[in-house]
């Protein structure tokens, strides 16, 4: 394992130190329990938007703390959900009368830890709700699984719910907006190479020189299916088929298309894949009205991409276009 780190045990805290130094105008970082809080929080009369999860997916979530997006992010150890006390600390630092919404990716650990924190906060008289995002079509949503994973849609959800909270929506409204987004966003990912968890020291899975994990998760969990390497045209089509077939997205729909790098895939390939996705969607009569291309939800150094589609309408478009100023997403400010 070669990484630019000192010690697997301190990698999260040290990375947070870099974030704190680079973005002191945006965030304040607290350690042990680790949580990243927006400068100026709590903001009076504003619903606090909080998310978190295992580290190793940056810029998710810590890079999305700031104006128009998250009030706090709670980074756990690499690929490990944070504990309830860390989430509680983030709630305490950001939440007032207007309450808070916790954005939780659907993994057993995240759900258990965040819901425990929400319960504890409720016991202290705070109005704290959770919304669970589960947009990964690679996983069958059945009683035979822990349910679909939360992946790329989380980025869009945090932006949109963040914009709703920023414009002054009440908790009920932010929550129902969030549930609406969850209902109409879908994703799929592929991996060309595995990530290596620092404390594991070995790649999370082995792939042959001509193999691709289709339907990969963001934790190096092996994908659902292993396929032969294929040209980008075929691969992106396979990904879009999986996503559009699911909701389904149909001719005439307007969508936001996110083409995401899993961390180790450089801009050249991410944009190439994005171009293919735009062409294929146009051929299907699905209109891409907004887009996001780059590394927004990663899996350490894993090579691969994910594609996320969100069905848009005027409200979502307005919320998407609203100003945002975070370490990783910024416009209008």
């Amino acid at each position, binding site marked *: 394992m070669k990484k630019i780190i000192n010690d697997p045990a301190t990698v999260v805290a040290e990375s947070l130190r870099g974030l704190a130094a680079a973005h002191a105008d945006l965030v304040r970082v607290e350690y042990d329990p680790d949580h990243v809080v927006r400068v100026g929080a709590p903001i009076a009369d504003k619903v606090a938007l909080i998310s978190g999860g295992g580290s190793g997916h940056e810029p998710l979530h810590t890079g999305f703390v700031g104006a128009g997006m998250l009030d706090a992010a709670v980074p*756990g150890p690499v690929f490990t*959900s944070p*504990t309830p006390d860390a989430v509680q600390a983030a709630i305490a630092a950001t939440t007032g009368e207007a309450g808070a919404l916790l954005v939780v990716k659907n993994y057993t650990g995240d759900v*258990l830890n965040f819901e425990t924190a929400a319960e504890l906060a409720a016991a202290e008289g705070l109005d704290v709700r959770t919304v669970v995002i589960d947009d990964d079509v690679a996983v069958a949503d059945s009683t035979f699984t*822990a349910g679909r994973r939360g992946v790329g849609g989380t980025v869009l959800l945090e932006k949109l719910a963040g914009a709703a909270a920023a414009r002054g929506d009440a908790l009920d409204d932010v929550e129902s907006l969030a549930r609406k987004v969850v209902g109409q966003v879908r994703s799929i990912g592929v991996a060309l190479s595995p990530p290596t968890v620092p404390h594991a020291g070995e790649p999370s899975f082995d792939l042959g020189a001509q193999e691709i994990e289709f339907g990969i998760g963001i934790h190096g969990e092996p994908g659902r299916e292993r396929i032969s390497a294929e040209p980008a045209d075929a691969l992106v089509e396979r990904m879009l088929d999986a996503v559009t077939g699911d909701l389904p997205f149909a001719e005439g729909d307007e969508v936001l298309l996110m083409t995401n790098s899993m961390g180790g895939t450089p801009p050249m390939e991410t944009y190439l894949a994005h171009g293919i996705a735009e062409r294929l969607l146009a051929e299907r009569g699905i209109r891409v009205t907004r887009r996001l291309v780059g590394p927004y939800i990663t899996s350490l150094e894993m090579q691969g991409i994910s594609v996320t589609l969100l069905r848009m309408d005027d409200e979502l478009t307005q919320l998407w276009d609203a100003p945002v100023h975070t370490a990783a997403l910024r416009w209008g400010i």
Partner: protein
Amino acid sequence: MGCDVGRVAEALRAGAATVAEHKAELIDLDRAIGDADHGENLDRGFAAIVSTLDSGVPETPGAVLKIAATTLISKVGGAAGPLYGTAFLRAATKLGDVSELDGAAIATGLRAALEGVVTRGKAEVGDATMVDALSPAVEAAERAQADGGDSAAVLSAAADAAKEGADSTVPLVARKGRASYLGERSVGHADPGATSTALLLRALAEVAR
């Protein structure tokens, strides 16, 4: 011969030692069908339990288990943190302030622990989770206790059954936790949480002997 508070603390230290010793193995199991952190997660939690105990042991076995519970909840994270944490918490609550754990108390505590895990995680036997180790362990403990076993005998029976239960997860398709995303591809691997449960019970049993 029961376990007093010192013995319980010792058992937790033994559990910590076993987790540390098998950390890499648990990571490897989780790497195969999960996200390669189970060994690291548990080790972080149990190491924290040990350092808490180093600065003072409370008065009752239940109080020691409660410390273990809150430490696991606040240090482990992931799925295992809340699940193991709840297990210890329920056992601690159930045991109240008895000063010594006999075979019956241990069987009762394990039953409470299992109920806690099931309440939180909703897994059934056969879903390839820690429940597949803990559930037969509870049953074996109850049988051993009914047969008049002391704390050592009860824990030893539980440990044996847990080991068998952990092994039984190998041919299963996982239906809960991260391994469930793999569907059929989860077959052929032991569940990390079931394995750590068996390892922990074995360590406790060794101390009780």
